[in-house]
Structures are given as C-alpha cells and as structure tokens.
C-alpha cells in the first residue's frame, strides 16, 4: 500500500489514555498494529507494570527489553516494551551520569523506593523519559529506529499530571541534570510529533472524565489527539422499532405471531413479553449511547468508533479493531 493521508501524519508519539475499564490497552495495541501496517516499525510501550500487552498478544511476560510481538497486515512490525521503573532508573543513571556504583548503593539504601514512591514525579519522569528516548532514537544511518511509538499511558485521571511532570520537577529541581532531562522530554511531549488519544465508552462517567481530561490537557498546553469510542453496542433494531421499544409500545401480538410462526409455540406470550423487555433495555442503552455521543461531539477533536466484540478480545479481534481504526483514518 502506498502512502496515504491519515489524521495523524507527522505524529510519532501516540499517547493512549482512558478511564479504567474502557479498554485503553486494547485500543493502544490495535493502534500500534494499525500504524505498523504496510511495512512500518512501531513500538508499543507499557508503563504501569501490568503486563497487559503480553496478555493481549498471548506471549509470556515481557522483560525490560524491546521485543517483536506481532506482524502487521501488509508487513510491518510491532515491538513491545514493558518499562520497569527500577531498571530504567539504573539505566538512566548509567547513561547520563556514569553512576553505576552509586546506582547499586542507591538500590541498597532504598533510593529506588525513594524514586518510585516518594520523590515527586521522578517515576513519571523516568517513564516519559524512556518513551521519548525511543521516539528520538536513530539508526546508525541517521534514520529513525521507530516510525511511531504508542504508549499505553496511565488512566485519564492521572494523565495530565503524568505528562506534565516536568512542571512539578521544575518547582523542586531548579537546575541540574534532572531539570535538563525533564525539559528535553517536555519538548517532545509538547511538539506536534505527539498526540494524546482518549479512550472512552459511551457511558456518563467515562465521557465526563474524557471531557475533563481534554480540558486539563488543553490547559497544560499538551497536544490532544482523537477520541476513541470503544465497545459501542451496535443497534440491532430498526429506528421505529427502537422508538417503540423505548416507550414500551411494541406490538406484543405481532411478536407473539412471529414467535409462533418461527415454530416456538410453547409459552409464546411469555417469551414475547420477555423479548420486549430486553428490547426496552436495549433501547435505553442505545439512547444513552446517543446522548453521550452528542456530548462528545461538542469537543472539536476527531472521533473514532470501535465496536463491542461479543466474543471478547483475542488476536483476531485486535486485527479487526486495527483495520477499523485504519478505515476511519486514525492510522
């Protein structure tokens, strides 16, 4: 496939966030597959130590090492990396300060606890730092190692603080290498090469958190990407049937006749009432989805819709979601 226009041409770091339970890891993985298709090389990075990527791609837990986990349609590779804070910190000390010995002493003295639990946002500095290093990394010939990096980021409630950690670091470390490093990372995060995508369901709370998150990110001057609507329940009914189901005016006699005609004689009336009740619930859910979709439409950012897969997410499902994202121009 030749080059084609997508909504995010020029973006090399895709940060994927979402409220817990919205399927942000799944969408991040599908986006990585979509971006890799047609012969590109994409890194999918995980920062929360949950090994969600390994489970999704059905492979053993990922070490702190970039590993190929999937081949995209049309040739193209998805690599995955589970960023381990402790290992990344030691690596970082070696890389920037040649502090291998001190690094070991720090591990012993509990400095790693200091960093991961206490030191303000340093954990986040390290995670964003490692990711942006992968974004900037080049081959010997000067070309970029990865065409794109997708980060399975912390949830919506924490994303602005996570990405904007430099701000906090600046308040505490007014100078020194940590400050310089944080500034470099921030330049990547604020550049047009970065886009932060929000994964949501068509339910009140996730939509509200998405809108709040977009607002916070905007205030912090961080680049907002698209809204990925996940697990949309398809509407299975004709519009007029849906309306009738919604206000409880479905024609029960007609349903009974249909049931009998299909050869289900026994208890047709009870079945009809139960089916109608299911339809009413379905109509209410559909109405809620529509309301929430309208609320999202007030935000100017592009929206992409992914269907609910009733069999759950397996590898085939991931490829299907990737294709859906490509069809809609997200990659």
């Amino acid at each position, binding site marked *: 496939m030749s080059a084609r226009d997508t909504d995010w041409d020029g973006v090399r770091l895709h940060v994927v966030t979402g409220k817990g339970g919205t399927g942000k890891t799944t969408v991040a993985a599908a986006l990585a597959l979509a971006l890799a298709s047609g012969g590109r090389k994409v890194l999918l990075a995980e920062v929360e130590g949950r090994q969600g990527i390994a489970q999704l791609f059905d492979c053993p837990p990922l070490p702190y090492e970039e590993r190929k986990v999937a081949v995209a349609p049309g040739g193209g590779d998805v690599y995955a990396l589970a960023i381990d804070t402790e290992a990344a910190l030691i690596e970082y000390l070696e890389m920037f300060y040649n502090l291998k010995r001190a690094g070991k*002493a720090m591990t012993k003295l509990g400095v790693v606890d200091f960093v991961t639990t206490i030191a303000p946002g340093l954990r986040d500095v390290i995670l964003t730092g490692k990711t942006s290093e992968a974004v900037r990394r080049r081959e010997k010939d000067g070309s970029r190692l990865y065409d794109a990096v997708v980060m399975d980021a912390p949830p919506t409630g924490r994303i602005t603080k996570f990405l904007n950690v430099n701000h906090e670091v600046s308040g505490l470390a007014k100078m020194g290498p940590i400050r310089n490093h944080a500034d470099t990372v921030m330049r990547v995060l604020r550049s047009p090469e970065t886009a932060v995508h929000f994964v949501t369901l068509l339910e009140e709370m996730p939509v509200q958190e998405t809108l709040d998150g977009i607002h916070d990110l905007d205030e912090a001057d961080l680049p907002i990407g698209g809204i990925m609507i996940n697990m949309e329940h398809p509407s299975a009914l004709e519009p007029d049937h849906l309306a009738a189901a919604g206000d409880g005016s479905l024609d029960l006699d007609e*349903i009974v006749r249909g049931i009998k005609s299909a050869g289900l004689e026994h208890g047709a009336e009870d079945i009809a009432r139960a089916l109608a009740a299911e339809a009413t619930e379905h109509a209410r859910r559909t109405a*809620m989805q529509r309301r929430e979709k309208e609320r999202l439409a007030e935000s100017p950012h592009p929206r992409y819709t992914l269907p609910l897969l*009733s069999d759950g997410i397996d590898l085939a499902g991931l490829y299907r979601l990737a294709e859906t994202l490509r069809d809609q121009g997200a990659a």
Partner: protein
Amino acid sequence: MHKPPPVLDVDALLDDPRTRIIVCCGSGGVGKTTVAAALGLRAAERGRDVVVLTVDPARRLAQSMGIGELDNSPRRIEGVQGDGELYAMMLDMKRTFDEIVEAHSDPDRARQILANPFYQSLSSSLSGTQEYMAMEKLGQLHRSGDWDLIVVDTPPSRNALDFLDAPERMGRFLDGRLMKLLAAPAKTGGRLGVKVLTAGFGVFTGALNKVLGVQLLRDAQTFVAAFETMFGGFRERAEKTFQLLQTPGTAFVVVATPEPDALREASYFVERLAEERMPLAGLVVNRVHRASAAAVAPSLSSARSQAAAETLTERGEHPLTASLLRLHADRMQLAAREERLRAGFTSAHPSVPVTAVPAQAEDVHDLDGLHLVGDDLAENAAVPAA
C-alpha cells in the same frame, strides 16, 4: 458441568454485628465506589450506623447520595429509611497528612513542616501517599468508635494490590535508613556525615546531589529534620491498621467486572489476601449482562434464537420478531461468555462466595439507584447454576 460457587450472602454479612469494616477492592473502573455506597446504604437501612469512606475523586458518590460534595469529615446522608444512620466522606489526602503533622508536633514545627516544598509535593501528589492516608483515615475512624460499620473503597491505583503494599512501602521509607542518612548532615552540621562517609555516604550524597540538584536535597533534609519527631509513629500506625485488617471484624469484598483483566486482578487479590491472612467475604461480579428472556424460556438458546430469526427473515415475515430474536441471541452469547469467565475464576477459587450485579442501562444517580444495586447484591439466586 461446573459446580456453582457458594453464594455471597450480603445481608448476613451486613447484619452480623461482628462485621466492623468492609473493604471494597478491585482494579480501576469496576464500580468499587458504587458497590461500597450501595453496601453502606443497605447496611444503614438494616439498622447499622455506617460511614462510607471513599477515595474516588469523582463527585458521583456525593451526587448519588444527594449532597453536592464530600470532604474530609463525615457528612450525614438524608433520606435513609430505617433505624440506622449513614455518613459519607471523601479522603482528602493532603488534609489528612496535615492533620497528622499538626497532631504530632508543636505549632512552630508544624508550620515549618507544612511550608516545606518537599512536604508539599509529598503530601499532595505522590503515588503511595493516597493509599497510606486511606489506611490512616480508616484507623482514625475505627478508633473514634462512632460507627459500628465502616465501608471503605480503595484508591484507584495501578493495580489492586497497591492498596496493601503502598502504606508499608511509605512507612518503610519514612522510617528508613535513607531518611535518617538524609537527616544526619542537617542535624549534626556534618559531623555525623563525616563518620558515615566511610560507609559510602559520600558517594551516595554526591550522587544524589548530582541527580536531584543540591537544593532539592536540602529541602528534603530540612523536611526530614523537622519531621523526625514523628518518625516512629508512621510505620507503627501503618502496621496497626494492617493488623486491624487481619482481624475477623474485617471483611474484604473483591469487585470485578466480567472481563478477563478485572477477573485476573481479582484472582491476584484473593490469593494475596489469603497470604496475608486477611478475611475475604467474597467476590462481586459487577455489571453482568443477562438475557431476561432466558428465565422464562430456558430452551431459547442463542443458537435456537438465531435460527428462528433466520427462518423468519428467509420467509420475509415478522421483521420485528426476527430482530428481537437476534437481539436475544446476542445477549445470550454475551451472557454465556461472561459466565464462562466467572466460572474460570471459580474453578481457581472454588470456595470464594460470589454474587453478581446486573449492568444497569444507565448510571446510578440517586439513592434509588443505590437501593437497586443493593437489592441485586443481596439477591441470593444471583449466580445461575451453569
């Protein structure tokens, strides 16, 4: 054929006067807060004096209970029927931390600590602090003796286990060697520093200075010096609350949605609770999808329903019935998948009691919504025998 799990008898749990603390835990987005609020409301209406402690910064809980906003002190909820009382509060971790500082140091020193930039970031923005303060608050509520049941909803952390680990980690840190080393130069004007130098301290502070910048280290040292009087207390209190959670008066309720990730986290949690000898009440499978027609027509399977719909469509008859049958087939398929996932959990943990709460078409907005969730939680026939 799977053996059905034992049923989690929610009312027996709530009615038992020995139940003093219920901890709702589970991964993010599974509805812990709603379950905690529904349990609290139901317990109050069954005669208990209840306080619900939430850490969810979303205002949903407050709104569903008819008050605009929750804060760091318990507010009484109006409209509760029956003899009991319901209070609710939201953990403000900075406020809780400030209160500890104020309670354990003289006013001058407290002011000094509260103004320190290192303390300010520590108390308001750091991961681990929230979990620690949730434990601290739980301990405080318990010691006050004002309620005979406390329902806690755990922080939305990276994974469910952080709730158990973070307080210990933070206590260890605050009491730890590192903090003492940091404190040493500030306290003794470097005298002790020289002594420790032989033990590699020079390399260590040198590195810290290099990495963090001198001024951050100085803030940290000042903080530690000011904070030192309170050191012993921190770890000790965290341990006490941890022990409180091991007593029979505590009941852990693990919440999950019928999704692989959430159930996997629930499994980890159940195993961890067993390791720590913490009492598990059972699992709540939240937001399950059910096909209500399955109850009246048990023979109307997904496949049969689909086949009947196809028959009608082929003949060009009864399009409404055909689409309702398809809808039913989809729901049956989803329900079957969820049931398989739940059965997977049960085969790994056959003795863990389970109850289920059906997905609501809309979010919970008010006490009525919480009542419905409470009814579902207590419904004994919640899990179909598969």
